[in-house]
């Protein structure tokens, strides 16, 4: 486990301030959110979970969408493969790198959203739990998406497309309950839906324990499944 942490630490040192991370992780969520909320009557209970969800999705996923293909293109990934560590440890280490970036961005965006909306978070502990679980699930998703690719230009378009689709289908702008039944079904298959739900409940303070349990379980499930898929995809693409 320490080795996974060292990989995350190394990724943080190298990739946190790379240009594409700043663009896709830091600026993209704000631009997209503002583009869809300007001119609409959006309250604090929408702004806070919406911005934090987007920053977590784009931030946590951005690191490994860049780091993994870049390392494979430059050959530094081979250093990890030759070391006495399992592929699972490598993937967990990579996921932790994105996780930390996602957490930092989520906190930053939370402060920004609080200032922007003048609102408050009713249940900070639940909000923190939502941020932590989501950052890990989204980071693992980022690895899954980038695992088949061997350089950044190949990996970025599908990564961005998938995240934008998740934002629209996961209820960040349009509540899931107002979607047509088929899209509601799709929404419940997406991790973003559970993030936005748990963060909304934490923001408003209207907490329904059963749905919080479902949200937490779903995010844990998605994180585990994405990690497992990432390991399999990497194993398959290592020639």
């Amino acid at each position: 486990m320490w080795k996974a942490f060292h990989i995350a630490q190394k990724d943080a040192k190298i990739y946190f301030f790379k240009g594409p991370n700043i663009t896709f992780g830091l600026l993209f969520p704000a631009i997209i959110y503002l583009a869809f909320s300007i001119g609409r009557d959006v309250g604090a209970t929408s702004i806070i979970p919406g911005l934090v969800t987007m920053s977590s999705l784009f931030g946590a996923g951005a690191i490994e969408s860049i780091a993994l293909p870049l390392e494979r293109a430059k050959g530094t990934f081979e250093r990890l493969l030759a070391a006495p560590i399992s592929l699972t440890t490598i993937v967990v280490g990579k996921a932790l790198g994105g996780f930390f970036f996602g957490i930092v961005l989520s906190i930053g965006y939370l402060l920004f959203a609080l200032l922007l909306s003048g609102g408050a978070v009713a249940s900070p502990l639940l909000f923190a739990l939502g941020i932590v679980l989501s950052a890990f699930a989204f980071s693992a998703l980022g690895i899954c998406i980038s695992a088949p690719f061997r350089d950044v230009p190949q990996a970025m378009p599908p990564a961005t497309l998938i995240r934008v689709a998740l934002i629209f289908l996961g209820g960040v702008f349009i509540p899931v309950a107002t979607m047509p039944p088929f899209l509601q079904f799709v929404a419940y298959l997406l991790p973003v839906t559970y993030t936005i739900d748990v963060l909304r409940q934490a923001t408003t303070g209207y907490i329904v324990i059963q749905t919080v349990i479902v949200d937490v379980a779903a995010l844990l499930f998605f994180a585990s499944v994405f990690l497992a898929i990432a390991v399999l995809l990497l194993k398959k693409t290592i020639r």
Partner: protein
Amino acid sequence: MNPTIKTQGLTKRYHDVLAVDHLDLEVSEGEIFGLLGPNGAGKTTTIRMLTGQTSPTSGTIRIDNHDIIREAIRAKRLIGVVPDVSNIYDELSAWDNLIFAARLYSVPKLERENRANALLELFGLFERRKDDVAGFSRGMKRRLTIAAALIHKPKLLFLDEPTTGLDVQSSRLIRNLIKELNADGATVFLTTHYIEEADQLCQRIAIINKGKIVAMDNPEKLKAISEERQVIEVSFILPKGLEDKLKGLSCISEVSRFGDKCRLRVDDTSEAVPALVDFSRENNLKIISINTLKPTLEDAFVKLTGLNPEVMKTEKEPVKKSGNSD
């Protein structure tokens, strides 16, 4: 005594391409073993399989009696790997690169710092230890890559084309270092397409071509394979028109120029030398020197593979590391 490396029927197939074809080899402890072959022969693929970076299609690999697939972590603890392209992190300093490598091998804190300092001194990089590697020359990066592979004091060191693309000074430094490491007890497995390098460094050599080992022995025994053809090196000023006449002598099978010298492949030197002296006299040529040359490893390589040695001089094209290998 168990061999440090033992492979049986090692095979790697990429779709329709058979990159490595049923490789059986044993490398003993304390040996410098070289895998010599042209680009595309299967050297890098072999090293990637031996170091557990890619799985073989079939066959087994044992590193110090540990199966590289089933006991990967145990086997990998024993080995240091220097790939064909330096794979250190450009964005980190030399020091951070070594410390990160040490952490991957669970080297304790105090030991990793002492070891990193010692290696940076040894490789002449201590003054630049805090600088990002991005600003390093190719030779410096290569040295740091080797230092990173040595940080955990591996019992077995794999070097893939260790001196390719380096200047003479860096190449010499690395060759001397390989000899020193071996003298200290490390087993070394290296691949190279430089015939001379293999001859100078290796105690045993396997010549690989199209994924198959075509010969495996110590360099002197390999050279003996081509001994039935001898070479005379003669230094004289040979006008152009006379070269064809020289080739026409019945005892000479091939003439090639090496600077101001001519190398003549002959079947029998005792017959060829007097003929050559007569030829010089008849054509008013002054022989400056005349030597009979022992067969070289290059001669053996040519004989065994049927390849022109020039193919060994072509540098490998840069490849994307996670893509196809040699």
